[in-house]
């Protein structure tokens, strides 16, 4: 029961604290304005370069919008403990580590889905993109899986926050990396093989393929393989994140280096 409380309440409190004094409305400029204008920026760049249709960019960037809360949010909930000088107290508490850290990913997944839905809805309205109503339920499933895989990568980045002074830069660098390699904006057939290989090992690439398939009229069964791949990537990063957190916690105790810079 206590672990459940740590998972849900602890995770939510930690995530809300990201926005300062527990007021999530302070995050709205970044969670609404930035992803929407990112979508518009690439859609218009796409029009200027003739790369693809608006639908292509609306779908890709809506999924990509989950990366901001997933990467920056989750990593921030771990690295923020260092800033507020509570990392030592947190790690000396007897709380279940899985509940402690995985609980911080759940609000980011919910936030990621909300941001993605907002972008998808506003992008389709502003750019007059049509998505069949029958595709929406399956599309929602893809959004959830993509938000999960992004949060899982954020957990891995956050783990480095136990040893590295400022992981927020690393999290922020991953955003344009995903812009490039995920296929959200640059069609993957234009990318070199090695960039494609990197993209296929990171969140979003497979989810975006699945989502575009659904919007193009394919069924969930047709897009299932890409969606399963996306889910597996999320699970792999979750496992890696937990292992890294345990490893860095153990190492920091062994070498007394928890808050060394």
């Amino acid at each position, binding site marked *: 029961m206590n672990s459940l409380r740590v998972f849900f309440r602890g995770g939510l409190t930690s995530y809300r604290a990201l*926005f*300062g*004094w527990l007021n999530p409305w*302070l*995050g709205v*400029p*970044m969670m609404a*304005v*930035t992803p929407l*204008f*990112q979508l*518009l*920026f690439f859609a*218009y*760049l*796409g*029009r*200027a*370069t003739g*790369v693809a249709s608006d639908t292509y960019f609306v779908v890709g960037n809506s999924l990509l919008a989950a990366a901001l809360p997933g990467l920056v949010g989750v990593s921030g909930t771990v690295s923020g403990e260092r800033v507020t000088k509570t990392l030592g107290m947190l790690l000396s508490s007897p709380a279940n580590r899985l509940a402690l850290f995985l609980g911080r990913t759940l609000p980011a997944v919910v936030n990621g889905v909300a941001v993605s839905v907002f972008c998808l809805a506003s992008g389709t309205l502003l750019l007059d993109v049509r998505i069949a109503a029958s595709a929406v339920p399956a599309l929602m499933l893809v959004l959830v899986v993509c938000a999960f895989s992004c949060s899982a990568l954020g957990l891995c980045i956050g783990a480095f926050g136990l040893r590295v002074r*400022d992981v*927020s*830069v690393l999290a*922020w*660098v991953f955003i*344009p*990396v995903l*812009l*490039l390699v995920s296929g959200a*904006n*640059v069609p993957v057939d*234009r*990318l070199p093989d090695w960039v494609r290989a990197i993209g296929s090992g990171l969140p979003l690439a497979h989810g975006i393929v699945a989502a575009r398939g659904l919007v193009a009229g394919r069924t969930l069964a047709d897009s299932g393989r890409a969606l399963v791949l996306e889910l597996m990537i999320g699970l792999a990063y979750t496992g890696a994140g937990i292992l890294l957190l345990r490893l860095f916690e153990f190492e920091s105790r062994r070498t007394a280096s928890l808050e060394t810079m």
Partner: protein
Amino acid sequence: MIRVLASGLRIHFLQLSRSASDVLGITVWPILYATIAYYMFGAESDPRVLLTASLGATVMAIWSSVAFGSGGAIELQRRLGTLELLVAAPVPFGAVLAPITIATSAIGVYALAATLLWGRLLFGIPLHFEHPLMFALSLPVAIVAIGMLGLVLASTLIFYRASLFLGASFEYPGWLVMGLLVPLSVLPGWVAPISWLLAPTWGMRAIRESTIGGSPLRAIAMCLALSACYAVIAVAFLRAFERLARERATLALT
């Protein structure tokens, strides 16, 4: 006053240059955005288009640095506990704040170097500048003008506690409206008049025309004129802020 501005600019530029995270951010971001632009325009495109994309990515990085840095400039001083000292100093607060915002713009020179080198080495984009002297003039004028826009941003976001978040949310709208990578011709017609009021639009135009040909003097003049306007606006805002903060005793509070 000139000494305050010059030494402030030097100190803040060196301070930002010593921050590995700031330098990493300002060099890696434009490289990635330039790469996205190369692949979207197509590697077989006119080399001048790709060079323009590199420069556009550089000005995008400068604007990002200013949007983040200026939005949080006063907030940072507040956190460090130096805001009262700076306001109480016997020089106008604007003269203390302007070097901070211009320095956040000036570290864009790292972005320029990294992006041009990246384009040259990986994509073979020739570095040919049509008017090298004009380019040498355009760049600092653009940097100062964008930094001064940052000063306006910093002075207007003073009372907003999450000014860093709000400042950062100007990043993409700025990139779009200023025509840094996306030509203004593909945007709705009402966007162009907005872009004329923003220094990065003219800074980009000055840099582009001194690189690929054209007459950058008009754009340089617009940068200078806008810088002066921004200074007047920022000083007015800062004076009002300072008076209110003293009256209410809320300088260090949020």
